[in-house]
């Protein structure tokens, strides 16, 4: 093994000499404690710069650097689901067993339990063709997820010589021998910074259903899409990401806590095992992988955590699953880049961030997509990144650059959050470019879905203008039809947009209930507008006794209670009928 010698230690950045044979991005072990690091710069004269993923306190110039000859990689195979890892794929439950409640550095352990036996079912026979993308076996990893063992992209085409029969196997056992004597088992490595190959990228036409009405109806994200949630502290980034991790209709969730609070990861660990996935009926934890590199953990590992996460996501995508990945927060990741760049004495661009920030952001979000996999399946990775702009100011570099690489922007609004209107997603500053592409899907649920959501959106946008005038002259000075707009907008906000994550019923809104609510509100809007036009008084509409029930339908009518829905619809409609007949 090649070895070098440390010449300088500056926080997580270490310089070493005698590193002629070390490659760019090669993993090295640094010092007597074998701290894990990565070569990030090589220079003439055998000098190398290393970023170290663990605390370097006590490290000395003169100590040894051990080269490993491989790039920073994740281990892929059965057993990833339900696990919590740090940024470099060390399982935190194992680390806790080994070093107690505080993470001791230099701790090394297998990412996956190599002693666990998995039931392997072969899907090829001797003599079959063996090339990248071929599925050579299956394992039921959890009750709802079947793991496919796929020939890795690097495999030279050959044929199967032997394969083990169906049965229980563990660890590094060889499952398949190829004619050229290459072997395959359960596990593969993949370098985290390199996207896994696919056959083709496809158009995005299916929504990633989130159960959050403001998203699904107004600013939808497609499966394979990329979205950003920017917002100042306390505006609801984490809660939104957690709600998506719980209720979105992805098959697999990869949740990355990147430079954020430890307790938020603990909360997920405590809550998810107890929540039931509405579609599979299984515990939510069974479809979830957590990556926790919290704010107090080493900053260099924070930088790598999002690559670790997205590589795991691509692994399951390649089996034909729909994976959603949440990164909370990409700003902390960008700050890790900035800190490391500063230590490297690189020339800074905006606000101290390195000039390559946009390239790095692009290469992360580019890994989202709906694809045809190497095995010919359809799979997707949807990426949802939280952004934490300093001072809540969206003109800062990370928000600005990010918005170039995503197509769905959920802007969190401080005023809404202050009024405890959650989710505080602004209907004024947010947008989704996926709307047109996925409207077809919703059209199959309700042919007028698009017309309904457009009508309500129109009312909301009109209200913004009217509020400005109302602030100057008072709302009572406005004509009735404009005051109706204010009233209806208020109803849309309270009855539809606002959604309480802590309410048993309201926390998840099914597509069926959403289309019904949209229809009811749109009909109500249209008919009231007509009535006012025909001379009805605003007070008559305001006095409809079923209004409070309309305002409470989100939390009082369960997702599948068709009778209650029909009932309420009936009440509203006869109240409007009554006003109408009084006009004549």
């Amino acid at each position, binding site marked *: 093994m090649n070895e070098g010698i440390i010449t300088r230690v500056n926080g997580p950045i270490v310089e070493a000499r005698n590193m002629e044979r070390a490659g760019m991005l090669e993993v090295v072990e640094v010092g007597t404690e074998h701290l894990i690091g990565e070569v990030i710069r090589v220079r003439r004269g055998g000098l190398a710069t290393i970023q170290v993923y663990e605390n370097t306190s006590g490290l000395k110039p003169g100590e040894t650097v051990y080269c490993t000859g491989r790039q920073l990689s994740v281990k892929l195979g059965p057993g990833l689901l339900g696990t919590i890892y740090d940024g470099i794929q060390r399982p935190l439950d194992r680390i806790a067993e080994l*070093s107690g409640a505080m993470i001791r550095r230099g701790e090394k352990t297998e990412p996956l339990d190599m002693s666990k036996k998995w039931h392997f079912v072969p899907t090829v026979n001797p003599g079959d063709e063996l090339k990248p993308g071929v599925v050579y076996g299956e394992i039921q990893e959890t009750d709802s997820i079947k793991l496919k063992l796929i020939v890795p992209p690097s495999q030279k085409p050959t044929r199967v010589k032997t394969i083990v029969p169906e049965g229980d196997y563990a660890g590094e056992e060889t499952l398949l021998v190829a004619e050229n004597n290459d072997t395959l088992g359960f596990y593969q490595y993949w370098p985290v910074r390199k996207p896994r190959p696919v056959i083709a990228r496809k158009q995005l036409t299916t929504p990633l259903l989130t159960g959050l009405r403001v998203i699904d109806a107004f600013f939808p994200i497609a499966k394979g899409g990329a979205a950003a949630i920017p917002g100042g502290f306390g505006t609801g980034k984490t809660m939104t990401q957690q709600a998506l991790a719980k209720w979105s209709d992805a098959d697999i969730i990869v949740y990355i806590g990147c430079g954020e609070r430890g307790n938020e990861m603990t909360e997920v*660990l405590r809550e998810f095992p107890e929540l039931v996935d509405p579609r599979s009926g299984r515990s939510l934890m069974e479809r979830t992988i957590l990556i*926790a590199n919290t704010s107090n953990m080493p900053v260099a590992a924070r930088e790598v955590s999002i690559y670790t996460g997205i590589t795991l996501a691509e692994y399951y995508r390649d089996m034909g699953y729909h994976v959603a990945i949440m990164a909370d927060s990409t700003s902390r990741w960008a700050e890790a880049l900035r800190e490391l760049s500063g230590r490297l004495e690189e020339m800074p661009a905006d606000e101290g961030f390195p000039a390559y920030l946009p390239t790095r952001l692009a290469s992360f979000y580019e890994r989202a997509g709906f694809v045809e996999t190497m095995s010919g399946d359809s799979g997707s990775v949807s990426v949802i990144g939280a952004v934490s702009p300093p*001072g809540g100011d969206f003109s800062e570099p990370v928000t600005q650059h990010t918005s170039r690489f995503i197509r769905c922007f959920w802007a969190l609004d401080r005023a809404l959050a202050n009024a405890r209107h959650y989710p505080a997603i602004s209907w004024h500053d947010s947008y989704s470019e996926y709307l047109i592409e996925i409207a077809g899907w919703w059209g199959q649920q309700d042919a007028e879905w698009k017309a309904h959501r457009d009508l309500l959106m129109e009312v909301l946008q009109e209200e913004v203008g009217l509020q400005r005038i109302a602030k100057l002259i008072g709302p009572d000075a406005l004509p009735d039809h404009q005051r109706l707009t204010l009233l209806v907008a208020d109803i849309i906000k309270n009855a539809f947009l606002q959604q309480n994550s802590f309410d048993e019923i309201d926390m998840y809104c099914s597509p069926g209930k959403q289309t019904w609510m949209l229809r009811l509100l749109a009909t109500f809007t249209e008919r009231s507008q007509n009535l006012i036009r025909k001379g009805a008084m605003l007070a008559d509409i305001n006095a409809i006794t079923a209004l409070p029930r309309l305002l409470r339908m989100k939390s009082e009518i369960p997702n599948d209670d068709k009778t209650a829905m029909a009932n309420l619809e009936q009440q509203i409609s006869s109240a409007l009928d009554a006003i109408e007949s009084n006009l004549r």
Partner: protein
Amino acid sequence: MKVAGLEYRGVSSIDGPLVFIDNIRDIAYDELVEITTPTGDVRLGQVLDVTASAAVVQVFGGTVGLSQEKTKARFLGSALKIPVSKDMLGRVFDGLGRPKDGLPEPLTADRRDVNGMPVNPYSREYPRDFIQTGISSIDLMNTLVRGQKLPIFSGNGLPHNRMAAQIARQAKLLSEEVEFSIVFAAMGVKYDVARFFIDSFERSGVLHNVAMFLSLADDPSAERLVTPRSALTLAEYLAFDLGMHVLVIITDMSNYCEALREIATARGEIPSRKGYPGYLYSDLASMYERAGRLRGGAGSITQMPILTMPSDDISHPIPDLTGYITEGQIVLERDMHQRGIYPPVAGLPSLSRLMKDGIGKGRTRDDHPRVASQLFAAYSKVKDIRSLASVIGEEELSPVDKLYLKFGAEFENKVVSQGEFEDRPIQRTLEIGWEVLKILPRSELLRVSEEELAKYYDEAVTIKSKK
């Protein structure tokens, strides 16, 4: 192995709080250094950057009086450690954990690295135990739970110290009879502030249960960087080794951040916002995250850092980055203070993120989460109506809007405002909450449920009409 305590004579340059030492060998990153001044004073420092033959050392005691030739440096072979022991309660220390009360060093061999180690998120226990502070604006609207980190965002001249002292005095759990031990860290504040806390602890008879780490305004600024870490190191020992419940009060984080900026500038680092280093977030997190509970452990650390917002600006990097790390914030408002309201807890920007799991059924009262949400929603409307009234005049407001104005005033006077020595039980606080909600028409109260309205709104209205 190096000769322990090898001494080097002379430094090559001195810049602000930093000294640069050449011709050294076998020195570790982060190692502690003892610097002896030409007059024989001994100061501690720490290695910030090291090569095979040179080191950059940050001197906690400041560099005043150091000279190139006559300064001596001795490298101590490990990072800064402080003693930890239960006997440190009732004592006063400097920022580096050395006795400041004239008494001897605590008798213990247990010394801990002040930087601590990151807690494994897998090993944390999610904090859920409601702490009753007796202050309605906190208990009702921004609940504190045991193991939370909840800072006070204040401004110069606002009563943050009185409020912190009141919380320290009144904080209790409803279910258990356990006292909080207090670890108090002061950085860059005047002696009066420290004195105020000492007096307050003394009066409530808890001084024996308080450990103080003081690095006051006239102490060297670099020492401020260690002070909170020393305090948290003791707190961790008390909480996680001994299973005690510790409340850590740290004041003033703004002075800490300034000291950090000073070091960064002296090192010629590229600043991010307002001259603060780009790693301010991570640096603050390395302290704020030292709060919480551990799975299977009995103890807890509840952190209450105080910071003064430069020009009352909440978007300034210090409060901004703090808010991004802590589990909420109690914001004090100058306008309310001027109107004589104590404690002047701002209604809207204050937040407790752990409140949701610490209140409600079986913890405080069933209706608590929704009452709080309703009060927030209504109060935010008050703010809008007040600005409308200032344009069109109060008389022009609709009848409902007028009720909102009345509600706003009552909310501030009855819910928020209370005595500095008034300890309100949560049940009483909830009653007051409903009392002020009753000013508003029933149809405005959408955040509370029909049953709750029937129970708390209608009932009270009928009682009234019977009279």
